[in-house]
């Protein structure tokens, strides 16, 4: 008995320690799957409690890892994962998003009459996938992590099986996601061929050496690998022209999952994107700067213009999130510390403000009202002033009006562009705030300035209250006193193999 414990302790102090957060999530996910059978229909919300516990434990382990890596980044499993600041930051972000969405889900699922344990289990598994995406330094770990997340999402998007929109969204997401995964895998295969290894460290060092002999700008194989990998990742983050799944999926999916996909999937994919762009593809950084900038601008343009005339809130937010991708990508384009900090802060802010925005849509859902049309918001300020105020805060933040987190995020993006002398990009970026404000304010107009024909005030459950409070608090706090949050973003900066510090 003692020996077993010792063994366990040894195990936990070794490599396994670094994946403890994931392990805990998996365990709780399995637990939910098991206990779900035992729960009567009216007690299904215990699944949510369980999932929250899992997130809590996972967060605790992650916190401990944070302390453990103060001395330096830790790698494990033959360098196939790395626990660094970057991972800690993103890990917490995923957990936060997961927790918020779990809180929002309970009531929503009850209304949808699809309250099953699988839902929460899949969320936890998706979180595991995301964590591995960011933690992985091996192409296989990254790919499998990505797929775990993606497949979980396909299912979650189609979770309302009796709803045609949900079906269609899931099928579209699956087909296109599979297609893009194929392209990504193709890119990974080329990368593997170039690097001679699946390990990111050795790929990077090989490609660094390779750059000595072949100018990266003319290295077609590398660029081919880049294009295919980038196409796969841009698909996941929904950047133009790989974005088209997003509005449909966002609209069709259960709103809670829309929030989750829009936030977590995007954040995780950006984590992976940064990981790859800053390491393996760094030698070609001069080559990918312009195309990424073009994609960013295209995303801004299309996202903003398409959103202007939408009447469905979820769809509108989908297009708006495409434009947010444009901003984040601009931070990547800047290729400097400020830009990366901006990306981190932006993603952070985006997580909370977007979940918050969707949360307001979620609380509108009730029996007989889907609540995702702009008209459904009418007169919200009279029916539920608190919800209207929160919606206002989130919209201001999404639009980038101070004093909200969204402004600081945009500020950093602009700052990085000015710093890297991309003045024209900066000009475009700031001017696109204007149409963005226009459509965000369409939402506000409906919530605040229109009369309603529907006198029923939305009922907000406890979980939703907590989620909304947390989200709005973070959005406001990061706008009013951004210092600690900027530190957080600063903290997330990783200096892979001296690339950034060498500049």
């Amino acid at each position, binding site marked *: 008995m003692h020996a077993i414990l010792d063994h366990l302790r040894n195990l936990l102090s070794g490599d396994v320690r670094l994946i403890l957060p994931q392990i805990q999530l998996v365990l709780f996910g399995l637990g939910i799957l098991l206990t779900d059978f035992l729960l009567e229909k009216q007690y299904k919300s215990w699944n949510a409690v369980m999932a929250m516990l899992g997130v809590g434990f996972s967060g605790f382990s992650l916190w401990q890892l944070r302390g453990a890596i103060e001395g330096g980044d830790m790698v494990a499993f033959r360098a196939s994962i790395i626990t660094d600041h970057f991972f800690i930051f993103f890990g917490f972000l995923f957990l936060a998003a997961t927790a918020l969405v779990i809180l929002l889900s309970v009531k929503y699922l009850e209304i949808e009459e699809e309250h099953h344990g699988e839902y929460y289990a899949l969320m936890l598994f998706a979180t595991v996938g995301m964590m591995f995406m960011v933690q992985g330094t091996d192409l296989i770990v990254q790919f499998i992590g990505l797929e775990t997340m993606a497949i979980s999402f396909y299912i979650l998007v189609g979770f309302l099986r009796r709803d045609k929109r949900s079906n269609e969204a899931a099928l579209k997401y699956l087909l296109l996601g599979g297609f893009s995964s194929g392209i990504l895998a193709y890119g990974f295969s080329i990368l593997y061929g170039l690097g001679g290894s699946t390990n990111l460290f050795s790929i990077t060092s090989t490609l660094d050496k390779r750059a000595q002999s072949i100018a990266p700008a003319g290295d077609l194989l590398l660029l081919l690998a880049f294009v295919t990998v980038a196409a796969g990742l841009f698909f996941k983050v929904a950047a133009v022209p790989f974005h088209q799944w997003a509005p449909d999926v966002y609209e069709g999916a259960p709103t809670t999952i829309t929030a989750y996909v829009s936030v977590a999937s995007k954040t995780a994919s950006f984590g992976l994107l940064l990981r790859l762009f800053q390491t393996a593809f760094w030698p070609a950084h001069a080559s990918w700067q312009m195309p990424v900038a073009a994609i960013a601008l295209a995303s801004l343009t299309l996202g903003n213009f398409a959103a202007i005339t939408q009447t469905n809130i979820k769809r509108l937010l989908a297009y708006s999130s495409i434009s947010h991708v444009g901003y984040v990508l601009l931070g990547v384009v800047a290729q400097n510390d400020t830009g990366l900090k901006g990306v981190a802060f932006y993603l952070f802010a985006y997580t909370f403000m977007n979940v918050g925005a969707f949360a307001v849509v979620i609380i509108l859902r009730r029996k007989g009202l889907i609540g995702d049309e702009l008209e459904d918001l009418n007169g919200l300020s009279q029916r539920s002033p608190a919800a209207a105020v929160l919606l206002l805060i989130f919209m*201001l933040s999404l639009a980038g009006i101070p004093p909200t987190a969204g402004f600081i995020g945009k500020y950093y993006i602009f700052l990085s562009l000015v710093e890297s002398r991309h003045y024209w990009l900066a000009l475009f970026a700031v001017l696109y705030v204007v149409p963005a404000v226009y459509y965000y304010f369409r939402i506000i107009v409906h919530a605040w300035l229109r009369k309603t024909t529907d006198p029923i005030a939305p009922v907000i459950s406890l979980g939703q209250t907590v989620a909304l409070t947390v989200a709005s608090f973070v959005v406001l706090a990061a706008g009013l*006193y951004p*210092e600690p949050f*900027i530190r957080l973003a600063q903290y997330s900066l990783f200096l892979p193999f001296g690339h950034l510090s060498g500049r």
Partner: protein
Amino acid sequence: MHNHILSVILFTPLVGAILALFIPRENVNAHRVWGNLFGFLGLIVSLPLLWRFHIGASGFQFKEDVAWIPSIGARYTLGIDGISFLLIMLTTVLGAIAILSSWSAIQTRVKEYYILMLLLQVGMLGVFMSLDFFLFYVFWEVMLVPMYFLIGVWGSDRRLYAAIKFFLFTLAGSVIMLLAILALYFKNGATTFDIPTLLASASQYTDAFRTIMFWGFFFAFAIKVPMFPFHTWLPDAHTEAPTAGSVILAGVLLKMGTYGFIRFSLPLMPTDHVANHHIITIMVVLSLIGIIYGALVCLMQKDMKKLIAYSSVSHLGFCTLGIFALTPHGLMGSVIQQINHGISTGALFLIVGVLYERRHTRLISEFGGLSTPMPSFATVYMIITLSSLGLPLLNGFIGEFTILRGVFEVSKPWAAWAMLGIILGAAYLLWLYQRTMFGPVTNAANEHLPDLNWREHATLLPLVALAFWIGIYPKPLFDVLQQPVKELVERVNPDYYKAERMKIPAKLPAPASSTPTTAAAPATPAVTASAAGSK
């Protein structure tokens, strides 16, 4: 000495707004009392500035400086000089009056209304106090939101359009300004957003860079002012906004643009003569177009508020004209005219509000002959009209005169063109007055309109008093402005003070009563003159 008077002024309305959240919305009168209480309190706490402000001291006073976002160098830095001092006083006065004026005008969503009014105050005060670009920008944007709602919720028919137009216009300008701020920030080593530091550093940069910076800031301010081609948001916003909103919008918000020009754009002007001249010419031409154009459009208006809105375009044209004359008089006149415009146009909007509250229309044709039922209203209205059209002994004249004096030094044609605006100003204002107040009462609905009540008196009479005070004894204003304006002119027009000083000659002894002259008469004065010169 360490004091927090500016923070107190800044946050008093905010405290009021936050506390008001806890008053139940059904308790409408409590909100009214509360809103007025804090509106008035905001004025009270700003009064100590009157005697504690140090006239003639250079630089900024009452400075407060606390770290805010150390990672980017943004600080919570407040401070005022003579220019911002006056604008802050204008803000607190008009704020209290605007809040008071809404007592009976606002019947729906009273709670939100007062909260938003108080928040608006915070934003505006913050803009005038901030000495940190980041903080400045935050306030600059923050204040858009309450204004948007004030127009959008309590406005009239086309309020949604007007509100979003207002928002988008101003936003478009300010985001470009943000870029300019960032560029300045980087140029100076990306360590601080301190406004004086950054502006001082501008002197080291090339003219090309400074020109770009100037235009970067230009749009934000030009839209806010608004200068000629960017003015179209203003009539819509003014027309649709509720009375108090219009008062604040015209009285204070527009001044943020002119303030920006004075505070930021002027120090960024290139030193090179040609580039400088280019910019000034453009600015002056736009101002002149604005003056005349605004006045002309006024003549065609059927809606009182729209008329006054366009008159603002004209009046603000004077302000920008004064600024870009780059002379002490031009600048001082400009600031004084900003204050005056706040008083006069604010009062005009209150006056329209009085009528609107009684008749729920703003169409000029609906009125006529109101002097008969509303004599005190007629008197106040007349005084304000006269103040707005620049009658001496009322405030408007002092401002316009001083501006024109400053402009005249630089270019006589500019001054002459601007005069056209004064003539037209009399035309449209008096015509408006005539159409509403004179003649027999033609519309039966107007026959028994009640005259001003005590509350309306309380909102209008302070403004009338201020109008007279500035018109008759403007010296304190000039004194307050002297020093900051001197510093500004020394910076942007360094040659100005270097010119030789002219002495008004002491009284010459009278020449003998009959100087014999045999030559042709014209020769005489020349002789006298040369004789005097040789002495």
